[in-house]
């Protein structure tokens, strides 16, 4: 194997695709656009696979991990700060790259079918390739600043794709909302970076780890603040409390975008970042417990909202938030490899869920309301069976992928003392809710009688069904790697699992509990949405307050609107309208105009049109010049001052 892995190709191939389709896309024939758009991620995936061959031991490895590739030209050399453009390949980034380029490629294929009739076809794919470019930069980054480039870039791509149908006001607004809410998180990331530079003098992840390892005095104070700042950034990008509000609105974008960016890859960047900087969190128990609590709280909070949503994509969006909460819970109990494991399986089954939902939406002509679906099982067999696999996986049934990863996180939480038991209980409760709302969605979509009889659904084309099937296989079998082997593989990057010292029997009991809870959720959904379909409405009527609270998502958007957005908007409006526009701009215009008018009014008296007055002014001027030249001013002034001094002398 060659010693050079050509990591730089991984981001640059999608970037080339972005440039070609972005600049020429409108003039190229459609088949060429498709070819370019699909080849870019496929080639990137190929490069990743080539690199992974050595790592997994299929061929002799050329270099030991972490393998670092640095641009020979220095990037920033300012005083003590030296930042290079460096990429790093280790076990963590390799797993993430496989997920990003692999699932990314499948979603590109799916998009060919889903977006086939859209007039912005080339624009769509150029954005999608742009996203892959930034996402791979984020994943490969060897230091925090390069990661920040990718971090901001995926935010940009996300904004562009949420607002892809920008003629629709709601889509444009949702794009802006995502962008602005992410700014708050990015602020935290930036402050964290400043603090890193100030305290460690470097932004390179490996150097930070070395410095922390050398000096055990690093703990508490500074490290906690840095870790919390980074966590704020992660919470923004990964839609955690209190910054999760943008993700449900992001569903305005095309469904494959929701699958790729807002379920499988971009939103997991926060989890990836925490795992990447885990040494900082390891040195701060307080920051770790904050991560765990935010994760658990988000998990159950979002799951309760998902219970009553009627838009198929919104259910999945809240489910994504909830599952991301699990991942942060995993990070918070220092089980980083469990969190990454869940990240991977979640990428499989959540991308599948979104794409299957997209297939349903595509089949029935753009309808997203669960109440208007039903009975689609016979009409859409491939979609139905793949979605079933995904539902079983997310609900945590054995032996589907979600079971293994969710179980690993819950087990790690359970071993974390008393607080860990509470976190575990919240996690299990969330699992019950997850199972319930997923089966609710499943029943309402596919089973029973059709609630819109005049719609004639048709199964999607092969370009959409193919990725569904592949992802279904991964959702079923993605967890069979086994937590032990996965954790062992990741250990050099993120440290060993805290559960190594655990009790195998306890683990089996906890797994049984998790599966029973999932089964219970299914049974409740079965009862409410198959056997007694009138029941949900009755319950909603019996508990109007609770139902309203959930259906309106705890009024968080309204709360933020009243507390943050409205005052800010009012203040900005005041500043813009009165201070800037009226006082500064208007005042300057009035002042300049006034000066011109005033001097004009005075000077116009000279322009009398009277020849003799002009001549008189001319003569007076000449006389003045003559006077000035003839009078010996120096002598006059000397005499004057002599008089003055003489007087002073008296």
């Amino acid at each position, binding site marked *: 194997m060659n010693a050079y892995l050509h990591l730089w190709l991984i981001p640059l191939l999608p970037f080339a695709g972005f440039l070609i389709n972005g600049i020429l896309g409108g003039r190229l024939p459609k088949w060429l656009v498709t070819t370019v758009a699909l080849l870019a991620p496929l080639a990137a995936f190929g490069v990743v696979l080539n690199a992974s061959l050595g790592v997994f031991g299929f061929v002799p490895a050329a270099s030991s991990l972490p393998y670092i590739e640095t641009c020979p030209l220095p990037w920033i050399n300012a005083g003590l700060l030296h930042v290079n453009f460096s990429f790093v390949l280790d076990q963590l980034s390799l797993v993430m790259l496989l997920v990003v380029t692999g699932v990314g490629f499948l979603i590109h294929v799916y998009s060919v079918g889903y977006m086939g009739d859209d007039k912005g076809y080339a624009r769509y794919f150029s954005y999608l390739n742009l996203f892959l470019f930034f996402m791979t930069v984020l994943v490969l980054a060897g230091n925090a600043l390069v990661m920040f480039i990718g971090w901001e870039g995926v935010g940009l791509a996300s904004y562009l794709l949420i607002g892809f149908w920008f003629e629709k006001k709601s889509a444009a607004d949702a794009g802006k909302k995502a962008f602005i809410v992410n700014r708050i998180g990015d602020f935290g990331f930036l402050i964290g970076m400043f603090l890193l530079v100030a305290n460690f003098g470097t932004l390179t992840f490996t150097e930070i780890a070395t410095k922390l390892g050398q000096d055990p005095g690093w703990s508490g104070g500074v490290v906690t603040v840095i870790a919390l700042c980074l966590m704020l950034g992660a919470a923004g990008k990964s839609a955690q409390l209190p910054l999760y509000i943008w993700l449900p609105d992001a569903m305005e974008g095309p469904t494959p975008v929701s699958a790729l960016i807002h379920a499988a890859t971009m939103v997991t960047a926060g989890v990836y970042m925490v795992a990447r900087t885990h040494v900082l969190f390891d040195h701060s128990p307080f920051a770790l417990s904050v991560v765990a609590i935010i994760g658990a709280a988000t998990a159950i909070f979002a799951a309760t909202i998902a219970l009553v949503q009627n838009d198929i994509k919104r259910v999945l969006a809240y489910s994504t938030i909830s599952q991301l909460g699990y991942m942060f819970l995993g990070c918070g109990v220092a089980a980083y490899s469990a969190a990454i494991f869940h990240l991977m399986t979640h990428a499989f089954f959540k991308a599948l869920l979104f794409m299957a939902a997209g297939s349903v939406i595509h089949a029935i002509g753009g309808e997203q309301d669960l109440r208007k679906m039903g009975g689609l099982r016979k009409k859409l067999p491939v979609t139905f069976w793949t979605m079933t696999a995904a539902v079983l996986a997310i609900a945590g049934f054995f032996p589907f992928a979600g079971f293994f990863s969710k179980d690993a996180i819950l087990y790690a939480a359970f071993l974390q003392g008393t607080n860990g038991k509470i976190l575990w209980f919240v996690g299990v409760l969330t699992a019950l809710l997850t199972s319930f709302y997923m089966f609710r969605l499943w029943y309402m979509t596919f089973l029973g009688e059709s609630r819109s009889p005049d719609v004639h659904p048709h199964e999607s084309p092969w370009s959409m069904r193919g990725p569904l099937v592949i992802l279904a296989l991964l959702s079923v079998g993605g967890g069979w790697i086994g937590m032990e082997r996965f954790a062992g593989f990741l250990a050099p990057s993120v440290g060993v699992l805290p559960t190594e010292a655990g009790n195998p029997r306890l683990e089996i009991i906890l797994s049984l509990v998790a599966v029973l809870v999932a089964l219970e959720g299914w049974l409740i959904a079965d009862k409410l949405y198959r056997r007694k379909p009138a029941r949900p409405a009755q319950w909603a009527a019996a508990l109007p307050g609770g139902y309203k609270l959930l259906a309106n998502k705890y009024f968080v958007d309204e709360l933020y609107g009243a507390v943050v957005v409205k005052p800010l908007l009012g203040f900005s409006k005041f500043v813009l309208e009165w201070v800037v526009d009226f006082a500064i701009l208007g005042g300057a215009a009035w002042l300049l105009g006034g000066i011109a008018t005033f001097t004009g009014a005075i000077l116009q008296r000279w322009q*009398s*049109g*009277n*020849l*003799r007055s002009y*001549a*008189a002014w001319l*003569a007076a001027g000449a006389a003045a010049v003559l006077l000035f030249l003839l009078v010996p001013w120096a002598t006059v002034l000397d005499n004057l001052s002599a008089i003055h001094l003489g007087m002073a002398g008296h």
Partner: protein
Amino acid sequence: MSSFLSQEVPLSWYLLLSAALFSLGVVGFLIKRNLITVFMSIELMLNGVNLSFVTFAHQWHAVKGQIFVFFVMMVAAAEAAVGLAIIIAVFRARATLAVDRIDLMKL
């Protein structure tokens, strides 16, 4: 002993005469209303200046001053031709030569 006539006239006399002519021209230009009189005042100023040129040329034995005078006279002649033509045109249009009444740019 040289006769009164053979004595040189002092330089200052010429210059005083020149200044007097020029000042008369200026005053005439400013206070007269008739365009032709104004025009004559300009000639007076020009000739006042001419006189000082000639004086200095004589004093310093330099020919430049006299050449200057020729130029001034040439310009004055040209000016007189153009100026009188304009005066005639103005008079035809306005039937007046009072400068106070000719205060518009167009005829």
